[in-house]
């Protein structure tokens, strides 16, 4: 059974001697901070098995592969990751709050429908929630009850951007989309009836999907 070359042991042991004065002397602090090692490079152990080379002839990257991991200043990246996570968490909470507000609004609309004798189409409500639930990072729409009993969700944005979706209750949406395309002053207007997918394609064509969800 082949034995590991002694250089490998040297290199390994060095990683567990963080207080070894000789290590600190080898590299000036500035160099240590700017190694720019990647995890892949640091875990490339090929150098450990390089036979016939002396410790002195090997680069510090070869002899101390883990130094890059321990010495690298991760704080900017960690802070960036934390910010991203916090941002996502915040968006999630906002979306959950939006969902609850929409639920409350629909309860109000149902109550109004009962008191005013306006129809309230349950099939439209089912389609509405199917659309909403498919969007975890939903932005809160304004919700209205049309005289025919259908629910209508409306999102408004800058420069007259507007998405109005009436849920017809058979997997179809009656949509109205207004948006100003880049390089134009007047808003383009589109309306029609389509499936969920078809409607989303229409919205994507105007590049205003971000009105609906993150």
């Amino acid at each position, binding site marked *: 059974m082949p034995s590991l070359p002694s250089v490998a042991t040297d290199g390994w042991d060095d990683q567990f001697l963080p207080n070894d004065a000789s290590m600190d002397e080898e590299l000036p602090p500035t160099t240590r901070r700017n190694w720019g090692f990647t995890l892949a490079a640091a875990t490339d152990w090929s150098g450990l098995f390089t036979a016939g080379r002396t410790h002195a002839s090997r680069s510090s990257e070869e002899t101390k592969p883990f130094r890059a991991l321990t010495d690298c200043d991760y704080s900017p990246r960690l802070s960036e990751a934390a910010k991203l996570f916090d941002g996502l968490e915040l968006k999630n909470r906002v979306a959950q709050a939006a969902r609850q507000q929409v639920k409350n*609004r629909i309860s*109000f*609309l149902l109550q*109004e*429908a009962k008191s*005013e004798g*306006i129809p309230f189409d349950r099939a439209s409500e089912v389609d509405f929630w199917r659309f909403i639930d498919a969007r975890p990072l939903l932005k809160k729409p*304004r*919700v*209205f*009850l*049309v*005289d025919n009993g259908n629910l*209508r969700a*409306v999102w*408004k944005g800058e420069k*007259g951007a*507007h998405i*109005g979706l*009436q849920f017809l209750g058979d997997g179809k949406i*009656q*949509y*109205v989309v*207004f948006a100003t395309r880049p390089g134009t002053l007047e808003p383009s*207007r589109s*309306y*029609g*009836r389509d499936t969920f997918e078809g409607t989303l394609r229409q919205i994507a064509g105007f590049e205003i999907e971000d009105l609906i969800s993150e």
Partner: protein
Amino acid sequence: MNGDALPDYDHVVRYVRPTAIDEGIVDGSGFELRAGHKGISVNWLEYFVGDKEAQLAEVRQLRRLHWKKSGCLAELSVGATKRHLSDQLPGISIVEDPLDADPQGGHAADPSHSLICGLPNDPPERVEALQDMIAECVIKTYPTTV
């Protein structure tokens, strides 16, 4: 006089039911043309003298429907609304349509009643888009009661 166009610089208000207003935003469904109606009912503010509050008070007094507190009165500029829709709806007009007194129903005459005319009945998706365009012209909303 019945059928006369309102001056472009004047204003009208329309009662918007609570199901068509959300957080102060009026939906196009608040401007739905009811079956059998010639146009969308509005009240001409400048028919009455006085400031905006006095005009609104007159309109509130002449109402013939039950107005809910959570509804609102949406104000439109006659000229701006017509201009905004003219490309899509060249035939749009806002005209006088005074209502006679209805003693049986206990209603006084409403000389400020007017109509937004020219909206098509079909196809529904186009009608909805036009209604949304009218809703875009809402300048301000007012409470139904004070």
